[in-house]
């Protein structure tokens, strides 16, 4: 048995670990009930199976085929997005969708149907999967995609690993001139301005995301960042430095004393820097990837991320209300991220993105105090008819899950009975 953590480091549960490394032998490894686990970059228990078996997929890291003329890439599910980006961008192709870290697997990105800063233009990760191979614990192998067994496909995209093990997938990449992004940062003082900036930017800018200062009185001031792929090719790439959090500090370094000065400094520094500039895609898309193990700064008790999406019509009020609760609690985080999703229905039965606005924040784990705050935030999300992101969740109540994911009953029919996770037991009862 080995202790496996997810990114939030909230638990230290034992798992029996089985490493999958041979695509031809996956089936043979699924003898006892378990759960696929990629890079463990999910925050809560969606990628954990406490006291049970975990099938680590990072050894399934082979490319299978690439068509230079169409940009279609076939690869095993344990390939990291980082490997795809570094190999393909110099050849003129880029992943259409990536989350805020490239240290995740293709399988993990499909199972959580992850989104990026360009959801309003291209949708989520699953929208670019042409087909995938699903291996079930009963011995079945199902090839599915938008045109082939679409019901299995939409259960598996965003299906949080519960429909089977994804062995490989075919991804449609997008053409790109080079590794550079034209970026612009604009400061805003309140949510109204944020929404105005979103509305006026989305037609012209592929990537938009905002950092907000969740501590300041009134809440809602922040920095709006937008970017477009640049036409430039030849420019020397910056040298990547690697910072590391070497140890777990005995207490969380994120507390009431550090937060306010940090958020203030960051806001003013960036505001002062606010301008247009050419950025390399790595720091632009993955600002934290160079700080290895930054999740350790929250100390041994770990941290929660609370990410919700609420419909656009009520978005401003709901976000304002959440920010108010958070400011009152004094427990906000370094990373409060606000973004609007595009007006498109999600492909997956349990996919998170839906039309509206999404707010994501980290909270150090202060036990009861933190849970009380979450209760108040839950109430706002429920009333707004929003939902919480499963990839980030470790505690939402079952009722909120059922209210937020109306296709749950349909999804359940596609579950693999040989697979269960901490999250599925908590929210689906098995």
């Amino acid at each position: 048995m080995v202790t496996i953590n997810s990114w939030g480091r909230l638990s230290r549960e034992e798992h029996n670990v089985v490493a999958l490394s041979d695509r031809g032998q996956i089936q043979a490894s699924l003898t006892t009930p378990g759960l696929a686990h990629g890079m463990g970059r999910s925050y809560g228990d969606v990628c954990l199976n406490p006291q049970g078996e975990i099938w680590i997929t990072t050894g399934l890291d082979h490319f299978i085929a690439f068509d230079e003329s169409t940009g279609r890439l076939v690869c095993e599910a344990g390939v990291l997005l980082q490997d795809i980006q570094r190999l393909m961008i110099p050849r003129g192709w880029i992943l259409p969708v990536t989350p805020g870290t490239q240290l995740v697997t293709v399988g993990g990105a499909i199972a959580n149907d992850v989104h990026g800063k360009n959801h309003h233009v291209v949708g989520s990760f699953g929208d670019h999967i042409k087909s995938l191979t699903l291996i079930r614990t009963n011995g079945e192998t199902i090839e599915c995609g938008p045109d082939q067994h679409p019901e299995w496909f939409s259960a598996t995209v965003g299906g949080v690993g519960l429909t089977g093990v994804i062995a490989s997938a075919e991804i449609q990449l997008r053409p790109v001139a080079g590794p550079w992004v034209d970026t612009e940062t604009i400061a805003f003082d309140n949510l109204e301005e944020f929404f105005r900036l979103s509305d006026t930017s989305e037609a012209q800018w592929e990537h938009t995301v905002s950092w907000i200062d969740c501590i300041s009185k009134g809440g809602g001031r922040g920095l709006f960042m937008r970017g477009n792929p640049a036409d430039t090719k030849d420019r020397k790439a910056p040298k990547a430095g690697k910072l590391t959090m070497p140890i777990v500090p005995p207490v969380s370094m994120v507390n009431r004393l550090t937060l306010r000065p940090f958020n203030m400094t960051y806001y003013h520094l960036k505001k002062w820097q606010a301008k247009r500039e050419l950025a390399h895609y790595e720091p632009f898309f993955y600002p934290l990837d160079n700080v290895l193990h930054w999740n350790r700064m929250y100390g041994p008790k770990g941290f929660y991320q609370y990410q919700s999406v609420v419909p656009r019509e009520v978005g401003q009020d709901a976000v304002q209300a959440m920010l108010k609760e958070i400011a009152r609690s004094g427990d906000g985080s370094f990373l409060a991220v606000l973004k609007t999703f595009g007006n498109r229905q999600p492909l997956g039965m349990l996919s998170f993105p839906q039309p509206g606005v999404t707010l994501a924040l980290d909270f150090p784990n202060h036990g009861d105090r933190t849970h009380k705050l979450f209760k108040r935030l839950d109430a706002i999300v429920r009333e707004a008819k929003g939902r919480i992101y499963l990839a980030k969740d470790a505690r939402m109540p079952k009722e909120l899950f059922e209210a937020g994911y109306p296709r749950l009953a349909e999804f359940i029919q596609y579950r693999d009975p040989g697979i269960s996770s901490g999250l599925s037991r908590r929210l689906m009862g098995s």
Partner: protein
Amino acid sequence: MKLKKKIAIIGATSAIAEQCARQWAKENPSEIVLVSRNQEKAERIASDLKVRTPDAVITNLQVDFLDAGQIQELIHQIYQSGNVDVALIAHGSLPDQEACQNDLVLCREALDVNGISPVLFAEAFAMQMQKANSGTLAIIGSVAGDRGRKSNYTYGAAKGLVAGYVQGLQHRFANTNVKVVLIKPGPTDTPMTAHLKQSGAKLAPVDRVAAEVVRGIESGQRVIYTPKIWSVIMMVIRNLPHFVFKRLDI
């Protein structure tokens, strides 16, 4: 610009070998020849390399690793399409020491696959490299070959055989353009050692080991310990007096 290289990898499905191949693929080689026993696995590795380095020719050959005649024939065949710049001999399997003590057939297999077989491949390459007066021959040994220990001396003895053999080969090629490199990885995180990891062993990441192997081969070092710390650890272990050594449970 770097000259394009032809690279031959024996035991290409071993984890360290595969990671080395990926590193070489980044350098845009002209040809990578994979030699293995398992056709299906080798094909998977070949198609992966093909995506990583579309301009290189990737060949995938199978051979019986214990058949001296077949081995000689195969290396001869590889040379027919041009000289090899780098040959990496990487195969091996970690036997269960206790099982080897109880079953001479297993003991024999472990010695064959980890000792005799790599030497046969090396000798076949040596013959060709001598003719061409060029090439780097790299062989994966092990820190286990540095001093016999009760926990794995069958494996260690085979690797010790390889080490002694390489010394001789280095002597033979001392005044030529042929380079011979012995690589001694410490415990590395591969499918071969997965069971050690479950029981809490500290293992070096395989891509890091591979990067050091490729760099070491490039610079033509005679002996490469990887990770480097193992050169110090093994120096201590080699020099421990027996009265101390015998009390260690290693």
